[in-house]
């Protein structure tokens, strides 16, 4: 169990030989938290000679975005992600193909005692959504750290915070609450969409060009009517669906969305309850989508509800 303490930024004056220079030490919620405390311990592994179909089945069942690929000596050699599977589908590979043909290497890892903060920066720099955590043995992988684990942790942190907007009702009135973060401030303000009449192949092209997890689908009037995520695509792949089918037949409806004025906590809860990795944001009219909020956006803000702990995010170069 992770316990949280409250830390604020502190300014330390270092006396140089000729000048006094202020150094702002950045501290936030994540400070001091190690990969060991934030990671999930369940790691899926498959050998290089397993079929893509088997990989899809495992990813769907365990709701993960990728799994570890092992060589014949059971050493991890790479990762097979939903993105790789979507690429294989688009490239016309049969689902009977072997994982070794589509996996990606080298494996990006961190250690048990690495700080989560550093891991998040590393993930961002490399454009990946998860990092595998190495154990003491040369070939051992003991866990996995993903944006959704971090977002879950932030949500729990905010729940236990005395300044939390979630617990506003339990508090006496004299205790003023920190300005809550709204979805509008954190969301990505562009939405990539396709028409429900476009082919699945066109949806995949859009998804791969923009490196997205899901594409919004609009009806003939331009209103949001569904979503196609990487998960929906790999399920279609496993079912032998043609790339030429209309988006309408693959999409999930209705669109899981929330209002742009909603507090971040509300949106997070909505995502966890609906088991989605992203929320489409509307401006009061649910057919009019103006942005997207993903769990990775939330992990980057390093806060689940307000500015009380993210204020110290302002980093001044030393």
């Amino acid at each position, binding site marked *: 169990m992770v316990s949280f303490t409250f830390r604020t930024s502190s300014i330390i004056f270092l006396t140089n030989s000729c000048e006094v220079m202020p150094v702002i030490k950045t501290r936030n919620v994540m400070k001091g938290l190690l990969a060991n405390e934030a990671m999930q311990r369940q790691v899926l592994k498959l050998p290089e000679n397993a079929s893509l*179909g088997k990989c899809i089945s495992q990813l769907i069942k365990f709701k993960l975005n990728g799994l570890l690929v092992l060589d014949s000596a059971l050493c991890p050699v790479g990762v097979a992600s939903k993105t790789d599977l979507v690429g294989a589908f688009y490239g016309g590979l049969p689902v009977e193909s072997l994982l070794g043909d589509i996996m990606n290497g080298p494996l990006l890892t961190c250690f048990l005692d690495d700080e989560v903060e550093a891991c998040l920066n590393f993930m961002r720099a490399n454009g990946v959504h998860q990092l595998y955590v190495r154990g003491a043995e040369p070939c051992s992988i003991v866990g996995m750290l993903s944006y959704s684990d971090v977002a879950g942790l932030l949500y729990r942190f905010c729940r236990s915070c005395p300044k939390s907007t979630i617990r506003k009702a339990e508090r006496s009135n004299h205790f003023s609450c920190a300005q809550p973060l709204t979805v509008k401030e954190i969301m990505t303000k562009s939405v990539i969409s396709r028409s429900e009449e476009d082919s699945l192949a066109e949806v995949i092209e859009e998804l791969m060009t923009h490196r997205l997890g899901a594409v919004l689908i609009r009806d003939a009037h331009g209103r949001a009517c569904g979503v196609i995520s990487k998960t929906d695509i790999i399920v279609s792949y496993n079912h032998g669906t043609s790339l030429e089918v209309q988006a309408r037949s693959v999409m999930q409806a209705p669109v899981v969305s929330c209002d742009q004025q909603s507090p971040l906590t509300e949106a997070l809860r909505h995502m966890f*309850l*609906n088991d989605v990795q992203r929320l489409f944001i509307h401006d009061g009219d649910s057919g009019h989508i103006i942005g997207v909020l993903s769990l990775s956006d939330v992990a980057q803000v390093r806060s689940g509800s307000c500015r009380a702990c993210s204020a110290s995010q302002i980093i001044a170069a030393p």
Partner: protein
Amino acid sequence: MFARDIMSTRFHTLRPDHSIAEAVRMFHTAGLEEEKRVFGLMVIDEKRHLVGMLSIYDVLLFVQPKHVHLWDEMDASQVQARYDELLDRVKPVRVGDIMTIDVVTVSP
């Protein structure tokens, strides 16, 4: 004594294209008709060949939300309201997508 001497030859099966909801109903029916708790069902194709096995554990893993540990911290009413929606959203997934394909078999 051989496996054929004690095996039962009447059992319920699933098809890979059954929905998860249909599979859950079959688990229930099989349990009632076989008068015992059924934890796993064999999956057969149209030629009646064994293609996999679905256990109730596979179904539970799949239906359980990823962040279920956070649900403790939410109000029970909110949680209950979402369960139906969740089950509704898994529609495209079929038995064939989550079944175990490496089935351990013995000859009769």
